[in-house]
């Protein structure tokens, strides 16, 4: 499979701070590529350079082997983390306006059908709910029938149902053959949507592969999760090296039977015990030492 976008030795500095430091990767055409990282890791700066919004201080970005230019502008769909629209303008009018920017554009009625915009098509854009606005922004990003779609934290601030709906819509875009580049704070989202992920920290890529391959490479153990109230903190930390997160104690183990025996030995109730495989959240924590939503 050929790569649609190649990023090579990308550098961006803000004064003395190097926000993006020699970042390189390629995105395979038709795939979904996830860029993950804690706040300030440099992922938004990286994606904005790839979108052509910010100019890099070093390195190259090539779209289909060429520097970003007219073809890229016509074929890229972009959904920013936050976007303001012109005031006093309806959803239909903003869609019409954006459709005129491109040589080829999708039908507004088709997009309205697909992203359930009909109910507020003639409504002022300032009066949309969070979920409605995200659907509109996604439809706007797709108005030019893009070959590559950039989504910068598209589901931040959405309720679980709206988030799940947006995932379905992104899956549809993928099924139609478009390439998707996604940044997200939600590991579940990255796992659900992405074929490949790159984890960034301090402006560098510290891990890059398919999600399952990354998990397999870093973990051969599981997590025994117990309600924090059921296991005293001193016993948990001393005897099991448990990590307390939110309301749970997380015990990483390669031998579940032995761990359960020891928990019973300390009279720890197991009614609320859960065993789960290691996930991207664990991987992220292990690699960056930071909670993703911190």
């Amino acid at each position, binding site marked *: 499979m050929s790569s649609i976008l190649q990023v090579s030795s990308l550098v961006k500095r803000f004064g003395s701070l190097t926000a993006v430091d020699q970042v390189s990767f390629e995105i395979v055409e038709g795939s979904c590529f996830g860029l993950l990282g804690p706040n300030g890791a440099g992922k938004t700066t990286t994606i904005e350079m790839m979108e052509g*919004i910010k100019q890099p201080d070093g390195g190259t970005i090539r779209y289909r082997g060429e520097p970003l230019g007219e073809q890229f*502008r016509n074929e890229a769909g*972009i959904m*920013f983390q936050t976007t*303001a629209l*012109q005031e006093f303008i309806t959803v239909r009018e903003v869609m019409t306006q954006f459709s005129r*920017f491109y040589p080829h554009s999708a039908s507004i009625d088709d997009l309205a059908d697909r992203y359930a915009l009909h109910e507020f098509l003639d409504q002022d854009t300032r009066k949309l709910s969070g979920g409605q606005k995200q659907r509109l922004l996604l439809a706007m990003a797709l108005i030019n029938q893009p070959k590559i779609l950039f989504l910068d934290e598209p589901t931040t601030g959405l309720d679980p149902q709206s988030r799940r709906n947006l995932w379905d819509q992104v899956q549809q875009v993928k099924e139609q053959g478009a390439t998707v580049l996604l940044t997200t704070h939600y590991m579940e989202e990255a796992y659900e949507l992405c074929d490949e992920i790159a984890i960034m920290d301090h402006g560098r890529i510290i891990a890059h592969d398919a999600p399952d391959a990354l998990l397999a490479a870093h973990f051969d153990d599981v997590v025994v999760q117990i309600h924090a109230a059921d296991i005293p903190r001193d016993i948990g930390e001393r005897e099991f090296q448990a990590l307390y997160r939110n309301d749970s104690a997380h015990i990483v183990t390669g031998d579940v039977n032995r761990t359960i025996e020891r928990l019973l030995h300390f009279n720890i109730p197991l009614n609320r015990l859960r065993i789960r495989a290691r996930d991207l959240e664990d991987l992220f924590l292990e690699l960056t030492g930071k909670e993703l939503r911190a």
Partner: protein
Amino acid sequence: MKWSRVYALFVGRNIEFMRDRSALAWNLLLPILIIVVFAYAFSEENPEKFKVGLILADELPDAAVQFRATRYIKFIEFAEAQPNLHKVERHQIDLLFDVSSSRYWINRTSANGYIVEKLLIAAYAGAQKDLQKTLVEGDEVRYIDWVIPGVIGMNIMWGALFGIGYVIVRYRKFGVLKRLSATPVTAMEFLSAQILSRLWLLLIVNAVIYIGMDIIFDFRMHGSYFNLFLVFALGSVNLICCGLVVAARISSEEVANGVLNMFSWPMMFLSGVWFSLEGAHPLMQKFALLLPLTHITEAARAIMIDGDGLIAIADHLLLLGVSSLILLWVGARIFRWE
């Protein structure tokens, strides 16, 4: 440049403006309020009741020195009499006096001219040289006739600078420009759409004001409406381009407000909108020539009051046109989407 994209932006901006009822109403009401307030305020003459033009000689006779010492008369020095006779005709000055030849010109319909003449004759009562009186005639130019072209120019200035500058800064601050930068729209296309959108709005709004004020004040219009339209259109483009340059990089409304005020207030007072700069310090007069509003006001006055044609105002049009192109080029060069 793709005109379909310019058209899309043009339409979007127009919809936004027309639906913003408060902004639209303010754009229409403000200049009418200004006209009414200032017409009322300036219906009384200023403390210097009289204006006398003087063509000075190398040595002033005692009588001339005595006349020049008269209080409450503003004396304005001219090099020659002939080019300034129309100022007597139009009541812009009450009397013109050539000291070396002791000749003076007054308008026989001017009450002020009659009084100033008496003062001049009194000053020369014991002098050896006889005064020579010449009568001129002409239509009176009322203050409202004189001030209207400048007020329309000033309204264009506010609408252009703040209408364009504020909008772009707001678009930048809230990320509207960032979203547009992610499309094939170029800076020149975006700026062109802003110019066109603001231009027709300014022309329509000011045409309405012009007609409304004409019904109320029946002011003087001796020239061609096409020429006047050309002056206001070119002046609008020029001032819009000034606004574009100011807004090319700023992302804070507070900073934009300060910079736009820094541009607009000197223009309001030094472009000869409210009072003639005749007799002002030469440096101030030279500075005024740098201000686009000076050229808009002078060209519009020349058309409306004197009925001048395009040739007579060609210098103003050329200056406005060339500086518009330079400002647009600079604005597009330094423009930032973010």
